């Protein structure tokens, strides 16, 4: 049904999207909690920083990533120590789409955490649970719908992310060519339209699948 190339693109996109969610979840949870429950100086600055990738055109984000994580970038030497090459690599695609999707993830997680009754956290403390356990078993669990939505948004955004990825990770067939990059490539070919349709169908199907999965989990979470 699909060409080998398309299958490759699809698998890569899936891998990138999954890793993107995995990569952003932990920071989003930590930052979400920090922003939802703590007051500290420069909070608004941190908050603003987290929203940046939303405001900046993705291409700009891609350039900034290059400035920061490129071989000659600010953190280039650090990455070199770990022998980690991000630019022009699928890991870079993960980073790019994670960064672009991060504000979405963070906001949902934060909204989820903010909707948790803090009294329940206090109850857990009196029952002997420390702050970490309380956070994991009460706050996070009750914020789970938010986490789920955040993951879904991040996943979907990753499936659709293009500007930052293509700028930071380029568009190397078989290595960093995700569905949107492929779509972009075909769109820029005068005869590419028919192949675009196929890819769109794939990504729509993927996101629908993710949606169904998330709705199903949300239902389970909420079942009382």
């Amino acid at each position, binding site marked *: 049904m699909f060409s080998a190339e398309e299958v490759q693109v699809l698998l890569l996109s899936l891998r990138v999207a999954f890793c993107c969610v995995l990569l952003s979840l932990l920071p989003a949870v930590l930052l979400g909690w920090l922003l939802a429950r703590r007051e500290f100086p420069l909070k608004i600055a941190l908050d603003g920083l987290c929203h940046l990738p939303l405001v900046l055109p993705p291409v700009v984000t891609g350039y900034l990533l*290059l400035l920061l994580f490129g071989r*000659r970038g600010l953190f280039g030497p650090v990455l070199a120590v770990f022998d980690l090459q991000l630019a022009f690599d699928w890991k870079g695609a993960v980073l790019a789409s994670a960064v672009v999707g991060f504000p979405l993830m963070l906001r949902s997680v934060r909204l989820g955490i903010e909707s948790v009754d803090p009294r329940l956290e206090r109850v857990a403390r009196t029952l002997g649970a420390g702050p970490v356990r309380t956070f994991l078993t009460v706050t996070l669990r009750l914020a789970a719908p938010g986490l789920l939505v955040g993951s879904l948004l991040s996943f979907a955004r990753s499936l659709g992310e293009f500007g930052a990825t293509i700028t930071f990770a380029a568009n*190397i067939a078989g290595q960093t060519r995700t569905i949107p990059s492929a779509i972009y490539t075909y769109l*820029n070919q*005068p005869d590419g339209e028919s192949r675009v349709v196929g890819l769109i169908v794939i990504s729509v199907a993927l996101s629908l699948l993710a949606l169904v999965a998330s709705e199903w989990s949300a239902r389970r979470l909420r079942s009382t």
Partner: protein
Amino acid sequence: AAASLSSALSELATHYKGMHLSVASSSTLAKQIAAGAPADIYFSANAEWMNYLQTRQHIEQDTRVDLLGNALVVIAPRKEPFAVRWARDFDFASAFAGRLALGDPDHVPAGQYARQTLGKLGWWSALKNRIAPAPDVRAALVYVERGECAAGLVYATDAAQSDRVVTLATVPDSLHRPIVYPAAIVKGRANAQTRNLLAFFSSETATVIFRKHGFTFLGDQRVQR
């Protein structure tokens, strides 16, 4: 007009009242025109998309003109130059480390010209897996500027814009299809005003400005197909 023409054209606009620029990639513009965009003149960065519109009857065929030309150059980060020779026996692949930045040969015209060049010289197979296909020439330039890539193949016009890269050599025209920037009046928009504007692009003023931005002016040789 295509994005790569934007700086030259915005400068032109200061000399011609009533000219409104819409800047995007050639493909986007072509599709917008196909969808009925209220544009008068389409100024493309390559022939393919002009052909696309032409076969779909969206432009006034007889107004199509290859106005500008450009050259392909090899660039490197400013402090890491290396020598290049245009000969089949030159080991281009070993002349630099890392990746070679170029426009994505799958759809960026500059990349396609670059691939042709490398192919003709027999360098392509050694470099095939070492290219960094950028979404457009600008991005390819940035890759080299940032030192992410040790070499790049971009338009002369782009290379001229950056002082962080050095132009190592200009690719001889014979190694690739001619690089042209065709313009044409959109179907149904041919009137005195638009013809006047198209003519202005060939005027003395325009020529000077285009040259200043690094383009070669191809005059008004009509292309018939």
